[in-house]
């Protein structure tokens, strides 16, 4: 058993190895999380996301293959959820103070707008003036990348948890505690997880009055529901993104869950 944590992606990322201690594998896994942080941060002016947001409409933009992967998955979840998930909500989050305002004036928020097209050569073309934020999916992707790296190092049993978006591997039932949404310092529910990812979204740490960092991609409305949404999926990026679909739709049986091999509950 070995456990370490570092601050990345605006939260604490916790890596637990089940049966062996392999400091090099854990260090390599944290390096992956740091890479996702650097590429996909809305705050960092040098990130792929910031370069995309500054670019002119119509411009093809070189991005890291990891950023391209996340944008492709975001597109898939957006399509299968009929727009409940949309990474183009950043102008709303800046307006409400959840993201820092970049130097440029904010573009108008257009509900349901498509903001990019993925080119076959690995570049991304900006198709509208909006800003993107990958905060609803990148943490999950970072967890997946860290898990891949641990497996490459021969780690058999591990849990990677980025502020509640987590994934476990190994022939072991990992005990997971879900916070009680109305008393988040306490356990609401406990469950076990094996070779799967789990993500929870809720407002209890972030809601301010009528706003929240969870936005319905179809209309830009803040999801201020007091419940919490937990999704289990084969990958953490998917689990992370799908919590926003369930939060926006209020439907723990949204058809896109089964289509993507996921399931959800609301407490």
């Amino acid at each position, binding site marked *: 058993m070995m456990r370490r944590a570092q601050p990345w992606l605006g939260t*604490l990322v916790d890596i637990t190895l089940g049966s062996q201690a392999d400091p090099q594998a854990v260090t390599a896994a944290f390096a992956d999380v740091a890479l996702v942080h650097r590429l996909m941060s809305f705050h960092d002016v040098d990130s792929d996301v910031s370069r995309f947001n500054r670019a002119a409409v119509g411009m093809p933009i070189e991005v890291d293959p990891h950023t391209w992967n996340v944008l492709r998955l975001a597109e898939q979840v957006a399509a299968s959820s009929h727009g409940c998930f949309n990474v183009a909500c950043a102008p709303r989050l800046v307006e409400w103070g959840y993201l820092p305002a970049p130097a440029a004036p904010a573009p108008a928020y257009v509900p349901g707008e498509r903001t990019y097209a993925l080119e076959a050569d690995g570049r991304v073309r900006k198709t509208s003036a909006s800003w993107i934020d990958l905060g609803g999916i990148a943490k999950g992707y970072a967890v997946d990348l860290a898990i891949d790296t641990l497996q490459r190092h021969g780690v058999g049993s591990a*849990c990677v948890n980025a502020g509640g978006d987590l994934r476990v591997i190994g022939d072991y039932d990992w005990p997971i505690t879900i916070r009680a949404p109305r008393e988040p310092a306490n356990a609401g529910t406990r469950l076990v997880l094996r070779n799967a990812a789990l993500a929870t979204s809720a407002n209890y*740490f972030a809601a301010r009055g009528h706003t929240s960092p969870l936005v319905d991609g179809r209309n830009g409305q803040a999801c201020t529901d007091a419940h919490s949404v937990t999704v289990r999926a084969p990958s953490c990026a998917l689990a992370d993104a799908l919590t926003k679909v369930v939060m926006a739709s209020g439907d723990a049986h949204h058809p896109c869950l089964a289509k993507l091999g996921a399931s*959800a*509950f*609301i407490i």
Partner: protein
Amino acid sequence: MIKSLPWVLLAAGAVGAPAFATQYLTAEQAQALMFPEATAFRRQDIALTTVQMQQVEKLAGVPARSVNWRAVAALKGDVPIGYMLLDDVIGKFELISFAVGLNSDASIRQVEILTYRESHGGEIRNPAWRKQFASKRAPGGLAIGEGIANISGATLSCTHVTDGVRRIAAIAQVVLAK
């Protein structure tokens, strides 16, 4: 209200639930991880002058907060190759102890969380509750047992940790940089 529960749950209900706590590393483990090439470590605490505190605040953009800082020099032979500074920060209901490893030019080498502990409700403001962390770096300090489960929930922001890291980077630049 539970709207839908498709999986088997081990237990439900929050009655008597423990506060979450995890010990990740002792200070000794953290320094060994950060400076594997070091041959020795020497305690070298820092006392800031008022002028230095002002410089730190200007560089970091956050209050310097304290005069005294716990620090360890990592040595290779007799030569310092870097430093590790220790700090605790308080969040909404959590207390986090962390260590920042710095190269001898004051650039950040690595940040490691040492302990994470949540309180029940108001305990975080209670000096007695905080006091139990005074000896947390002693070997065998906090029990790992209660922290084994992973927690899933809304993302808890760690802005106070990143502010703390920025403060320490500024202290290193003002006091330790060559």
